[in-house]
C-alpha cells in the first residue's frame, strides 16, 4: 500500500540548494543531482562513490550529526582499547570532493515533486538515496519509558551512549554484575552483542575481580559465529560469563533497575539493554516501510524502494527478504552504497544500471588481541530475480587468532577511508 508523505512548507530556500520548478524532469532541465540522506556506512559511501564514478554529478549529503561515529569498533571503546576520537571522523574529506554536506534532519518527502523536507528547509533531488539505519522497538517491552532509556543504554548507535556505558563499566565495583540482552529477530550486526560480551568479560576479569556478566539471549544458541564465540568463552570466560538462552524480556523497571522475563527478575549494577530493532525513523517518515512492517523493501537489482519510485534504500534499514541474504553489517552497507551509486550514475546518464555485487567481511574480537571473522559474497541470480549468497565464499574463520585481530584494525582503517576520505 503506497503511502505518500506530503508536507507543505513555504518555499524557504536552503542557500546553495536552489529551487527549480516542481517538474524536475521537464525537457530542457539539465541538472543531475543526487541527494543522500544519512552519513553512515551506507550513505557516506554512496555519496563518495558517486563522485568517484562521475564527478560531474551534483551530490548533496544530509546528515543530522556533526560527525560520523562508527558502531564497528565502538565495542573496543567500551573496554578502553580505543577512544571515542579513534572512531569519530568528520565529513571534511567528502566536502573536499565537492560533496555538499548539509547538517539537517530529513522529516518528509514529496516524491512526485522530487524533494525531501528537512527541518531547515527543502532539498530537491533527481535521484535520492537514503540510509536510515535502525531504531529500537521499545514498544515491545513494558516499562521502557524515558527514564528506562537513560538507565538501560543500548550503546547500539555509537555516540553518547557508548561513552555512558564505558563510564558505567569503569565505575563498577569489583564483584558487581553486568547484564546485557541480545535482540531477537533481524537486528543490526548479528555478532555485535557477542563481541561486546567477550570484551566486557575480559575487562571484568582483568579489572573488576569477582564481577559477573549475565547475558540474556532469546535465541537457542549464539546467533552468529556461534562455535567460535563458544570456543573462546569456554577457553577464557567460564568464571565470568553466565550465558542464558531462550530468555524473552517482558518488562523493565527503571527505578528498581531490574529486567524481567516472564519467569524471573534480574537485577544488575550495569545493564546494557539492546532492544529488538526496526528500520530507522527516517524510513517510516518517508513512506518506505509498508503498514505494520519493520523494514524497507527494495528491488534487488537497484536497491530502489518498491514503495516510492526514485528513492534507493541502503544499509541496515532494508528488508533482507527483498534485498538479499546479506547481513546487516557496515561492510554490507558500504557495498550497498556502491551499488546505489553506480545505479544512480547510470540512470542519470541514460545508461543501463550495472548488475549489483555485494560482499561482507566482518571481524569480531574475542579478547583484546584475538579475532574471528565471517565472509560473504552475494550476487544477482536472474532465474529467481533475487540476490543470493554464494555458499563457498560465505563462511566463518577456521578459528581465532592475533593475526585476524590485527586485520580487524586494518579493516577499520580501510573502510573508513573508503567512506570518508
Amino acid at each position: 500500500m503506497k503511502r505518500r508523505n506530503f508536507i507543505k512548507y513555504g518555499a524557504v530556500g536552503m542557500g546553495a540548494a536552489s529551487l527549480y520548478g516542481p517538474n524536475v524532469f521537464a525537457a530542457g532541465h539539465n541538472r543531475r543531482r543526487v541527494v543522500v540522506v544519512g552519513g553512515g556506512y551506507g550513505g557516506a559511501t554512496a555519496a563518495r562513490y558517486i563522485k568517484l564514478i562521475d564527478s560531474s554529478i551534483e551530490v548533496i549529503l544530509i546528515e543530522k550529526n556533526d560527525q560520523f561515529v562508527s558502531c564497528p569498533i565502538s565495542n573496543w571503546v567500551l573496554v578502553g582499547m580505543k577512544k571515542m576520537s579513534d572512531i569519530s571522523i568528520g565529513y571534511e574529506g567528502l566536502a573536499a570532493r565537492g560533496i555538499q554536506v548539509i547538517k539537517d534532519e530529513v522529516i518528509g518527502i514529496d516524491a512526485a515533486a522530487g524533494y525531501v523536507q528537512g527541518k531547515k528547509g527543502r532539498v530537491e533531488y533527481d535521484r535520492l538515496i537514503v540510509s536510515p539505519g535502525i531504531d529500537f522497538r521499545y514498544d515491545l517491552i513494558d516499562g521502557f519509558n524515558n527514564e528506562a532509556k537513560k538507565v538501560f543504554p543500548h550503546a547500539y548507535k555509537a555516540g553518547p551512549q557508548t561513552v555512558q556505558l564505558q563510564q558505567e563499566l569503569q565505575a563498577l565495583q569489583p564483584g558487581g554484575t553486568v547484564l546485557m540482552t541480545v535482540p531477537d529477530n533481524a537486528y543490526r550486526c548479528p555478532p555485535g552483542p557477542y563481541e561486546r560480551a567477550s570484551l566486557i568479560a575480559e575487562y571484568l576479569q582483568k579489572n573488576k575481580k569477582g564481577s559477573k556478566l549475565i547475558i540474556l539471549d532469546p535465541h537457542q544458541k549464539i546467533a552468529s559465529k556461534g562455535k567460535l564465540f563458544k570456543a573462546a568463552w569456554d577457553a577464557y570466560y567460564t568464571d565470568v560469563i553466565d550465558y542464558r538462552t531462550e530468555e524473552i524480556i517482558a518488562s523493565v523497571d527503571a527505578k528498581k533497575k531490574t529486567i524481567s522475563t516472564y519467569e524471573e527478575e534480574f537485577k544488575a549494577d550495569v545493564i546494557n539493554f539492546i532492544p529488538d530493532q526496526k528500520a530507522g525513523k527516517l524510513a517510516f517518515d518517508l513512506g518506505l516501510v509498508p503498514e505494520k512492517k519493520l523494514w524497507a523493501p527494495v528491488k534487488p537489482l537497484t536497491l530502489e524502494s518498491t514503495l516510492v519510485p526514485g528513492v534507493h534504500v541502503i544499509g541496515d534499514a532494508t528488508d533482507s527478504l527483498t534485498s538479499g541474504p546479506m547481513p546487516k553489517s557496515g561492510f554490507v552497507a558500504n557495498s550497498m552504497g556502491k551499488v546505489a551509486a553506480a545505479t544512480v550514475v547510470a540512470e542519470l546518464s541514460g545508461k543501463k544500471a550495472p548488475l549489483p555485487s555485494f560482499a561482507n567481511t566482518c571481524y569480531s574480537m574475542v579478547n583484546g588481541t584475538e579475532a574471528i571473522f565471517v565472509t560473504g559474497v552475494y550476487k544477482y541470480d536472474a532465474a529467481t530475480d533475487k540476490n543470493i549468497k554464494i555458499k563457498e565464499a560465505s563462511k566463518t574463520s577456521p578459528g581465532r587468532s592475533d593475526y585476524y585481530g590485527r586485520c580487524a584494525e586494518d579493516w577499520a582503517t580501510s573502510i573508513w577511508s573508503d567512506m570518508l576520505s
Partner: protein
Amino acid sequence: MLRMTILLLMMSLTLGSAFAATIEQADGARLSRTCAGCHGTDGASPGKEIPIIGGQIDKYLQKALAEFSTDKRPGDVMRNLSKGYSVDEQKQIAAYFATKPWVNTPHAVKSNAGANLVKSCKGCHGSMGEGRGSFPRVAGQHPDYLYQSLLEYKHGDRSSSLMKLVRKLDDATLKEMADYYSAIK
C-alpha cells in the same frame, strides 16, 4: 556462473533491448569495488597486514586469486572470498586493480641495508622491486605483509620453487628485506 553469463547474453541478444536494459556483462569495477572495505579504495590499502593491491601486476593478482580459490595459497579470508568469483571474474578483478595507481605504504620502515641485501631478488622482482612479468611488485608494500609472506615461503606454507631461496635465510634477514623493500618509493 560463466554458463549463467553466457545464457543471459544469449537471452539478451534474442530478447532485445528491454531485457538487456538490466542485464550486463560482469565488469571489473563493479566486482572490485567491494574489495575496498579491506584493501582500501582502488586497492591502496592503508593498513599494515592487508596488502596493497592497487597497481599490482595483473598476472600476479590473477595467480593469487586462482591459488586462494583452490586452497593452494594460505589466507583464510581470501580463500573464502575468492571462491565467490569465477576464473573470468577473477581476471577482471585483477585487471581492474592492475590499472590503479600504486600508493606506497604509509608504514615504511627506514632501512639501513644496502642494495646488496636483495641482489637475488632483482632478477624476478625488478631492479627497484617494481615487479616484472608475472612477478609481483614488492617496492612500497607494507613491511609486515612482506615479512609474513617471506615467512610463508620459508616454512613452505606458500609453495613456490622460485622462492625456495629464502629457506636458508634467518628470520631477521627476512625482516630486513621486508623493511628494505617497504621503504622504496
